[in-house]
């Protein structure tokens, strides 16, 4: 992964130029926490620099030296180098001894984790960085059918001279994203999950979900592609606290067997 980002570091910022709506959201979270903030997969500092400019200290972790070099330069140019502590490392084993009130992992970076076990390791690592009552906030996506149909296998000019192509594999739930600039092409995989699967991983990582938003304006999640999780470190020894099954009546159709073809019996039933 570090190799990949080393390759795209030079044009990462132009490529992601149109992504701005998350910045204000994460800055608000950082200011509300009082800091310091650990940003996992800090990249080029696209979010860390505005947080630092808001007066909050940031510890930024990334596995790509080239991305960190870009971030360092950005921090210097913004005059906030003393507020941003950049460290080379893996987000599953972040080189952070400090305990902080807020950890963030913006821009779908957790989806670089290929398996659920790796995602769980990353969540547990984030949890371990938090002081009592601290929060871990991150965003991910799960594509809609329309999204897949509109973009699958097509080179689209995302920014002038920078093309992006999405190849979706719904079976393995992997998006292979390719970025082309001049004559270099770089590809990487993003491995998505559904909301219920994230809720399960968060529960197992002892992170209680405070909110699931559908966008950075904090609208509630309602089945859209983007999901933003605001979670809080569960107090040790209070596993059940904050974990309450919804006490509304169950839906009781008995149609489970009808929903799915009995493929094992009649071959492909439909």
């Amino acid at each position, binding site marked *: 992964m570090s190799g990949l980002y080393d390759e795209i570091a030079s044009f990462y910022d132009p490529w992601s130029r149109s992504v701005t709506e998350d910045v204000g959201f994460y800055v608000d979270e950082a200011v509300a926490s009082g800091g310091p903030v650990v940003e996992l997969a800090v990249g080029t500092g696209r979010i860390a620099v505005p947080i630092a400019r808001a007066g909050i200290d940031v510890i930024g972790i990334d596995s790509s030296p080239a991305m960190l070099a870009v971030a360092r330069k950005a921090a210097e140019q913004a005059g906030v180098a003393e507020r941003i502590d950049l460290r080379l490392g893996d987000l599953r084993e972040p080189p952070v001894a400090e305990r902080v009130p807020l950890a963030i992992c913006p821009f779908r970076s957790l989806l670089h984790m290929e398996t659920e076990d790796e995602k769980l390791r990353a969540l547990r690592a984030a949890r371990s960085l938090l002081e009592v009552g601290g929060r871990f906030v991150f965003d991910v996506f799960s594509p809609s059918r329309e999204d897949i149909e509109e973009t699958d296998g097509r080179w689209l000019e995302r920014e002038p001279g920078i093309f992006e192509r999405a190849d979706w594999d719904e079976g393995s739930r992997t998006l292979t994203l390719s970025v082309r600039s001049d004559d270099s092409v770089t590809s990487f995989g993003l491995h998505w999950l559904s*909301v*219920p699967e994230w809720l399960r991983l968060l529960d197992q990582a002892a992170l209680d979900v405070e909110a699931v938003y559908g966008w950075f304006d904090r609208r509630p999640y309602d089945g859209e592609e983007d999901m933003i999780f605001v979670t809080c470190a569960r107090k040790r020894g209070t596993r059940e606290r904050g974990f309450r099954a919804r006490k509304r009546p169950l839906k009781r159709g008995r149609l489970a067997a009808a929903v799915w073809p009995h493929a094992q019996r009649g071959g492909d039933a439909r």
Partner: protein
Amino acid sequence: MCVSYPEAFATHYERWAADMTDDIPFYVALAQEADGPVVELAVGTGRVAIPVARAIDRKVIGIDSSPAMLDQARQAGGDLLDLRLADMRTLELDEPAALVYCPYRALLHLPAWADRRLLFERVSEALLPGGRFAWNAFAFDHQIAARLDGERQAEPIPHTLRYSVGESRVDIALDSGDTSSLWWATKNEWLGLIEVAGLEVEALYGWFDRRPFDDDSREFVWVTRTPTP
């Protein structure tokens, strides 16, 4: 969230279930190995519980949250069953069970992880040491979902399916306007539930004939148990 009218589904249940029969001998065999009380979750009309009770020659405890379903079960085999109107998430037994089972993918009516975790923990607490919890559920496949999504189907009663993949949910809308939802789970989610409830996997089959579960399997058939000291 759509409003559900479960009683409307109860009257049609036998027609939906008419082609599901392979599960009965599987659950009967588990019950015959059970040395203690046997409990069926979401007992419904007693389709599985009645043959099970006959085979083991004792009453099966049947739990369901639908009075209309329980009425049907009572008429079909009331003397063979100990029927209880309850939400399975609040399962409590006077006496620990040797077998709790949930056929017909009924666990998928629990909306996602939180409800399921509660249920698994309750079941685990209600079992004897070495007692079993068995259930089956479909294994999601995106190609099947893509084919069925939005398509109206006439049989067994006219209905349309809508898949919300990001939420692992499928909504079943009858032409009459009644709706119901299911939330599917992956193998990893089932393993997570088994782990948090302190259960052990005894077997994962791909169908009721006990073939091993593999990449082509479209059904999870799980047999788990509580640890023995």
